[in-house]
């Protein structure tokens, strides 16, 4: 919680404007208690420059749409207090890295979500509507693994923070692989072999160098690194059995 008193009346805020060839423009924004980075961006858009483009929806850390680069690190801006990230009384707010910029703070998320589909992030049901509900005990190993990874809100922070995505644009990325891992542990899913093939190889889990930027910056405190390690183990087992 931001309990400290603001040390200055105004914040010096640099905000990315334009497309990929744009640049940072400076604004002075009044400092307030318990002010979030999203509050700052909203204040600029409403009071200084209505042409500023940015994306948000829920404002409470559920929808995953307001992620931006704040002072060099990807963050969810609605739950990031200015007091936590202020560096030398300055804020620099840019669009997420590793994604094409549409305009200002808005990135094109299509590739990010297309990779979820490429990683076979769709649930493949094995039962019909006439079957009873599957009963999955909370204490089972698979269920525990799912519980540890399922709360992803698709904000793209892990993807924007991943060096491997930057080096290898085909790399599926932490979020898509994390999603695949939850499905690999779902006893109701019926497409596990095809999914293992989808997440193997140069663009898949084996490209991960375990740098763990995704895990460090995930606002939901998930560990895509652990999920990817799980996929690596699963692919090795499948390869040794000859099913990969």
């Amino acid at each position, binding site marked *: 919680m931001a309990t400290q008193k603001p040390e200055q009346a105004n914040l010096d805020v640099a905000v990315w404007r334009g497309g990929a060839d744009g640049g940072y423009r400076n604004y002075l924004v009044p400092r307030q208690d318990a002010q979030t980075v999203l509050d700052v961006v909203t204040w600029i858009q409403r009071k200084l420059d209505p042409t500023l483009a940015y994306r948000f929806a829920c404002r409470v850390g559920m929808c995953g749409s307001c992620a931006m680069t704040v002072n060099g690190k990807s963050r969810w801006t609605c739950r990031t207090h200015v007091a936590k990230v202020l560096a030398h009384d300055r804020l620099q707010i840019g669009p997420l890295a590793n994604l094409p910029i549409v305009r200002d703070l808005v990135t094109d998320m299509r590739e990010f979500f297309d990779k979820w589909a490429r990683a076979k992030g769709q649930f493949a049901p094995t039962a019909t509507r006439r079957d009873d509900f599957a009963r999955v005990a909370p204490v089972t190993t698979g269920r525990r693994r799912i519980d540890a990874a399922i709360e992803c809100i698709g904000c793209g922070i892990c993807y924007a923070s991943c060096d491997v995505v930057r*080096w*290898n644009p085909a790399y599926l990325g932490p979020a898509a692989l994390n999603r695949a891992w939850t499905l690999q542990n779902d006893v109701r899913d019926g497409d596990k072999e095809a999914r293992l093939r989808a997440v*193997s*190889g140069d663009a*898949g889990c*084996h490209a991960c160098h375990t740098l763990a930027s995704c895990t460090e910056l995930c606002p939901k405190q998930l560990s895509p690194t652990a999920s990817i390690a799980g996929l690596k183990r699963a692919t090795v087992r*499948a*390869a040794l059995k000859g099913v*990969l």
Partner: protein
Amino acid sequence: MTERDETRLWIAQRVSAAVLALFVAVHLVTMIVAVKGGLNAADILGRTRGSATWALFYALFVLAVAVHAPIGLRNIAAEWLQWRGPGANRCCVAIGSFLLMLGWYAVVSVIV
């Protein structure tokens, strides 16, 4: 390369890394303990010539290097130089073969 091939390369690199972790440690400790008056081929061969154990140790060591290094170089070429595909693969196989040839040539000197 197929996903299957890529997975096998990944396994080969991890297994060879595990082998190297042990072998490099033995190699370094041996060097520190054994080398007293400088490092030269005659001294090394004087200690190791005719030893099947050392020959086997270094034959496996060289094999692990020849597997591990080119796979790592292939990753570096792909990520840092954006060089992928058959050309990069062939180059890495050539480097691995060269390392294997040089290393085993030295090992033959221990045996013969």
